[in-house]
Each structure stands twice: as structure tokens, then as C-alpha cells.
């Protein structure tokens, strides 16, 4: 059943993401072409144009990630808390699978968008004078990184990776929880969901601030070692708690408190 759910969710989301990614690719190519046409140099006109293009490009990247978030939000809301909920909630599929389905597709598009982003950076830089600078900076960083104690290095890599993966899981789940809470209302569910999201995000950052003021060690960025011992593990534990609470509370509310 999960396979079938994934198939239809992929189809439904591709309607938004294919044009979105195509537009993003188009913008990348267009700017690249433009940059090549104006050429590179230090005169004010070229500098201004370059800054202008890079600014628009950064906006496009932010828009891409924002759309990932908005589409993920909208799909869950539309599928369960509008008239389509009459279909979704009466399918012979467990709520577990329904949530997992939405989550996996959200992560999938997030990964695809990130790949597209990295690819577009590569296209932007390749063949320009900046390419050598970029490679130089990268190799320097690697050299620096290799000087660090292998134990800490390993810890840093595994912790960073897990933290990234866990937050890719926890953020959609957190969004789903907010929508489900908003969906408890008889009317104005969309507004309530968005409101819940902003309130809950504010509450979370407040908790984080209080926590870091009580335990200043966690906000100590002097050296990779401290980072690996305090902040990263804390972020990982925080994500795990967020995942567990979001998932089980969402499931409970959808199974036991639905009122469409």
C-alpha cells in the first residue's frame, strides 16, 4: 500500500515541482549566458551587473527551498483537511503509512532540490575565473580539516550528517503536527494551521534560548571539539524528540480526534 500511496503522491507533487525545477534551471542557464556575455572584469558596470545577477540568483534559491516547504505544507493540508480528506481518511490504509508517505515525498523533493541547487552552482562557476578560486578554497579547507584529530573528525562528520538527516525528517513532521492541530477547528483550518506553525516555532526558539542561557557551554563555538561535544549532540537529541513527539501526536490526533 505504501508503494501505491507514494506513486500518487509523487504524481501529485510532480505537477508543481517539474515546472518549478525547470524554471530554476532556466534562470541558472539564463544568468550564466548573461554573465558570459558581459564578461568578467573589475570595472564598475560589470561589477554592478554581476552583483545584481547574483542577488537575483540567491533570491531564486531561497524561493526554491521556500516552495519545497510550502508545497509540503499545502499537500498535507489539502489532502486531509479539505474535501479531499473525505477520500484520504476513508482509504483502507493506516494513518502510519499516510504520514510516512507524505514525509518520504517531502524529503525526496528536498533532496532533488538540493541536488539541483548544487548542480546550478557548478554550472555557474564552471569555466569562469571564480572556478579556480572555488577549488582552491575547497582544497584548503580539506587540508585544514585533515590536520584535526581523526577521532574528532569522525565525530564531526557523523554528527553533522545525522543532524542534517534528522532535521530533514523532523521539520516536515513538525509542519504536519501544526496542520493537524489547526485541523481540529471546524472552520478556518488553513489560517489556524499557519498560526499554529508560527506560534510553535516561536515557542521552540524561546525554549532553545532559555536552554542555552542556562547551559552556556552549548553555545560555545571555540573549536570543533566543543562543537562536537555539546551543540551537535544536543541538536541531534532535539531532532529525535521533535520527530517522536510530532509523529505520535499527529497520528493520535488524526486517528482519534478527526472532525471533518
Amino acid at each position, binding site marked *: 500500500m505504501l508503494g*501505491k500511496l507514494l506513486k500518487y503522491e509523487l504524481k501529485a507533487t510532480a505537477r508543481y515541482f517539474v515546472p518549478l525545477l525547470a524554471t530554476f534551471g532556466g534562470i541558472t542557464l539564463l544568468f550564466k549566458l548573461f554573465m558570459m556575455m558581459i564578461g568578467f572584469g573589475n570595472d564598475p558596470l560589470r561589477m554592478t551587473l554581476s552583483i545584481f545577477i547574483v542577488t537575483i540568483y540567491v533570491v531564486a534559491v531561497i524561493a526554491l527551498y521556500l516552495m519545497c516547504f510550502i508545497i509540503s505544507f499545502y499537500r498535507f493540508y489539502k489532502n486531509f483537511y479539505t474535501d479531499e*480528506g473525505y477520500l484520504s481518511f*476513508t482509504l483502507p490504509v493506516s494513518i502510519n503509512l499516510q504520514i510516512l508517505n507524505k514525509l518520504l515525498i517531502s524529503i525526496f523533493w528536498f533532496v532533488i532540490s538540493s541536488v539541483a541547487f548544487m548542480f546550478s552552482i557548478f554550472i555557474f562557476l564552471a569555466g569562469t575565473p571564480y572556478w579556480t578560486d572555488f577549488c582552491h578554497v575547497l582544497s584548503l579547507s580539506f587540508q585544514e580539516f585533515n590536520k584535526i584529530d581523526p577521532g574528532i573528525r569522525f565525530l564531526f562528520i557523523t554528527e553533522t550528517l545525522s543532524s542534517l538527516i534528522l532535521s530533514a525528517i523532523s521539520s516536515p513532521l513538525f509542519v504536519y503536527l501544526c496542520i493537524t492541530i489547526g485541523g481540529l477547528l*471546524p472552520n478556518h483550518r488553513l489560517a489556524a494551521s499557519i498560526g499554529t506553525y508560527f506560534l510553535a516555532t516561536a515557542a521552540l526558539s524561546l525554549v532553545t534560548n532559555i536552554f542555552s542561557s542556562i547551559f552556556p557551554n552549548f553555545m560555545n563555538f571555540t573549536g570543533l571539539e566543543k562543537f562536537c561535544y555539546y551543540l551537535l549532540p544536543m541538536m541531534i537529541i532535539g531532532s529525535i524528540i521533535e520527530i517522536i513527539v510530532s509523529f505520535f501526536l499527529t497520528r493520535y490526533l488524526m486517528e482519534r480526534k478527526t*472532525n471533518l
Partner: protein
Amino acid sequence: MNYILECNNLSKVYSGFLALDRLNLKIPSGRIIGLLGPNGSGKSTLIKLINGLLTATEGDILFDSQPLGIHSREHISYLPDRMYLPEWMKIHEVFTYFDDFYKDFNKEKALYMLKDLGIDENKRLKTLSKGTKEKVQLILVMSRNAKLYLLDEPIAGVDPAARDYILKTIISNYNPDASLIISTHLISDIETVLDDVLFLQNGKITLSATVDQIREEKQKSVDQLFREVFKC
């Protein structure tokens, strides 16, 4: 006796309003039942509770002697009182969707009925008129070989010719071991199709009888009786 559906002491309160009031109901297999009542009497609330779209304030529902869950969703074919299909899909895509998720869905039958009603399967739902969408939904629901059909106002929006076709579809497609509950306030159109009628008034069942019992005892049709009982 085995009942396909049992509601025990079922109550539902909506923001202070008592929509269902300690309702008790037992539905045997093989019956076509009219759930009749004016607007706001609790018909849709009852049907939505049975589909798990609402959570009961009190009481419980058993389907096939089990609490609601995947089993009940596998065997209940539900027609809501609104458009509930993803609008961006084409008709044949929705058919495949039902075929994928419901083991009891008969796609050939659905395609046959679609052709009978002269609807093009390559059309997108978005582009269809309200009446045509209702027909597509009814075809989907009636093409399942379910144990219980719950049709919420199935004939409200369609023209009389289509209404006749729909009633014939219901009669000739439904499995005699299954039960079918139709909620409506347009009684005269469906009266001859029903075995039993339930009158729902202010969240309570005020009358439960067979159509011929009512005609025999009161010498009037269910429609006439309904008009008297729910006179304004």
C-alpha cells in the same frame, strides 16, 4: 442475528449543538434503507461518524462486529455529499486509483457504466459539470463490491433521467448480501427502492419500519407520512 452495523448510544456534540442524541441502530445485511429527515436532523453526521470522519462524543460503532478501522474502510463504500476527488486527475486515473486501493473495485463495470452514461474517460474532473462529477462519483462507489454502502444525498443534484438510471444502477449493482443506506429528503423518487425507512429527527430515530408496513398501516406513502411528520 448478525448485524453489519451497530450503533450504541451514539452522541455527537458540535460546538454546543447536540447533532446526535444517544442513537441506537442495528442494520442487518441485505437491506436497502432510507435514512430520512429534514436538513440538520443529523443524517450526514451519522454517516460521517460511521466513516470515521467525525469522532463520537459518546457511544460506539461496530462494523461487522469490529470497531471501526482498516477493516471497515475496506468494506464500506461511501458517497459523500460533496466532491471529494482530486480535481486534477482524469476520470480513468481516478478509476485506476480506486482499483489500486480497493480490492473490491470492479473497473470493467465502472468503465461500462461510464460508457452507458456517455462520459469520456479522458476528461479531467476539473472540466466536468457538477452533475457529471456526481455521476462519476456514484459510478465509483457503486462499482465496489462492498458490504455496506453509505450514500449521502446521492440524487440531489442530477436531472430526473439520470436519477432513474442511478436508481436502476443501485438496484442492479448492489450485492444482495450487502446493505445500503441512502440519506435523502427527496423520498418519493426512491420510495419503491427501499426496504426500510428510518426517520431521523433532532438527532434521534423517531420511526423505523418497512415501507410496506407504513403503507399497510397508514394507507399512505412514506413520502406523505414524511410530509406530515416534518410539517413546518
